[in-house]
């Protein structure tokens, strides 16, 4: 008898546990529980407190370059490729943004992300949207998804040689990829983007290099990347959307459809995408849109072609192209190199100040 009571207790406990697990499971599928929503509300505030003391720097030298992110994992973080498919993370569905104050900020962040021109115009100095390089609203694996980036910060970045929090990382995107002015710390644009990234990362492990983070790192190509071959790849596979002049296209309502890849309205010489290896990884995984069929060699070649075109100056420009190249540009950058008789960067339009084209 004394043996049976514990057995019965164990059996009943198991049944109850199973019931609870089932109940929680079904609730998860329908909508976030009040507890989840509350956690989601509280956490950004808590993080905000911790970032108050973070180094404030106007000279944010963060590239949009996920490849270098991957070479700077947090101590103890999983190495790229170490995670199995079972570790694949999926962000919450679009429809699951909570209907409360936090959810409103998440929506604001998503709107800024997908129509940066419209919702964060004062910080943008070109014709790009966040979602141009972070496809599917920052959700797509191998397209620098926000859910994989969020929990990898704060992190030390070799590019600016200090520990960056997530807010500073986003400021870097505005300064370089968006060729603009970074929103100041605490600005609603920054808070909204942080909220959106945080929400997308709901349930993601912290400080873990998730599969699909950043852009894939391609093996070195068989033949050195070629401008000439790249030009042909561009004409065959890219010009349809981005235009034969690389300046993109607008829709019939005047809105931006395909982004400019170089010139005064594209990313500047400090953006991660200006590095041939970063662009090659993005292109290989994502271009042409929905039909990513280029070979590694084609991706390297066309990246070399695109990143050998003039674009807005590096915001860290010292006054000398060769000095700036020496100080900030590594082996994968064409900045300061001579292509078709022209030193790239020499005729660059000033960064962050390009006037809007044909504004009313």
């Amino acid at each position, binding site marked *: 008898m004394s043996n049976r009571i514990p057995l019965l207790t164990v059996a009943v406990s198991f049944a109850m546990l199973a019931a609870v697990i089932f109940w929680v499971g079904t609730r998860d599928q329908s909508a976030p529980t009040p507890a989840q929503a509350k956690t989601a509300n509280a956490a950004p505030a808590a993080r905000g407190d911790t970032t108050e003391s973070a180094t404030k720097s106007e000279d944010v030298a963060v590239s949009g370059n996920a490849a270098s992110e991957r070479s700077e994992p947090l101590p103890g973080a999983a190495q790229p490729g170490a995670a199995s498919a079972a570790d694949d993370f999926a962000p919450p569905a*679009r429809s699951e943004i909570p209907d409360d104050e936090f959810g409103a900020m998440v929506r604001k962040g998503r709107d800024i992300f997908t129509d940066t021109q419209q919702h964060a115009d004062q910080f943008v100095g070109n014709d790009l949207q966040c979602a141009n390089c972070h*496809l*599917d*609203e920052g*959700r*797509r694996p191998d397209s620098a998804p926000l859910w994989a980036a969020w929990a990898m910060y704060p992190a030390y970045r070799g590019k600016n040689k200090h520990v960056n929090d997530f807010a500073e990382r986003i400021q870097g995107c505005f300064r370089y990829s968006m060729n603009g002015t970074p929103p100041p710390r605490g600005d609603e644009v920054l808070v909204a983007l942080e909220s959106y990234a945080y929400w997308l990362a709901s349930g993601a492990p912290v400080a873990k290099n998730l599969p699909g983070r950043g852009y894939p790192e391609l093996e070195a190509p068989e033949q050195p990347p070629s401008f000439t071959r790249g030009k042909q790849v561009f004409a065959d*596979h890219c010009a*349809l*959307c981005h235009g034969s002049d690389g300046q993109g*296209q*607008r*829709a*019939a*309502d*005047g*809105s931006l*459809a*395909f982004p400019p890849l170089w010139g005064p309205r594209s990313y500047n010489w400090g953006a991660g995408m200006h590095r041939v290896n970063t662009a090659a990884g993005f292109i290989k995984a994502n271009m*042409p*849109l*929905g*039909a*990513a069929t280029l070979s590694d060699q084609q991706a390297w070649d066309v990246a070399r072609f695109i990143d050998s075109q003039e674009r807005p100056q590096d915001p860290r420009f010292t006054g000398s192209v060769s000095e700036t190249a020496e100080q900030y540009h590594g082996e994968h950058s064409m900045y300061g190199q001579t292509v078709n008789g022209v030193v790239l960067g020499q005729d660059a339009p000033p960064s962050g100040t390009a006037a809007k*084209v*044909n*504004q*009313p």
Partner: protein
Amino acid sequence: MAIRKCTLSALVWLLSVSPWVQASPSDIANQGLGENIAPCSSCHGAHGEGNAAAGFPRLAGLGAPYLEAQLDAFASGARENAVMQPIASALSTDQRSAMATYYSQLSAEGAQASKGQSDNPPDTGAELAEHGRWANDIPACVQCHGPAGVGVGEHFPALAGQPAAYLEGQLRAWRNGKRPGGPMGLMASIAAKLDESDIKPVAQYFAAQSPAPAKGLDHE
């Protein structure tokens, strides 16, 4: 004098029986050409606005290279269509090009025929149109066809306000190999990735959009 009159009437007669000698695109559009070419307007409307009830597409304001490629594909049979095939093959290459230019220059403003034909398209259509389904490598339709399908440049035609039956038919034609895949085979590749259940909702979504976009930004 009598000879002159005779010559003149001969000339008039010649012109009347040989309209292809100098039929303008506008003439062909509104009066047709000879026995084989019915007026385009009889199906596509007087202003190229299309006919929602019958499922005939709008032509007004679509890109000239796009329209020309379609006429060429009808003529060669690459795009299968029993009505358009004889018409397109009766036109010369130059005439096909001229017709494409003519319709590309008509304003989409007058094209209201399809609007409101499906006021309550299913949400699944909007989801696919506006967000795509990246798990299956399907980009949002609007990424190439513009917000609400207003069209982008010369190669990405407007979908907004096109008859739902027409749009549905085209997606099926790509899936069945009865229409060339378009530049870089993009549409054949996307149509092949769709589920059967995607087709109607996404066609209805675009059919319900306004064909004449409000110019939000005056950039170009």
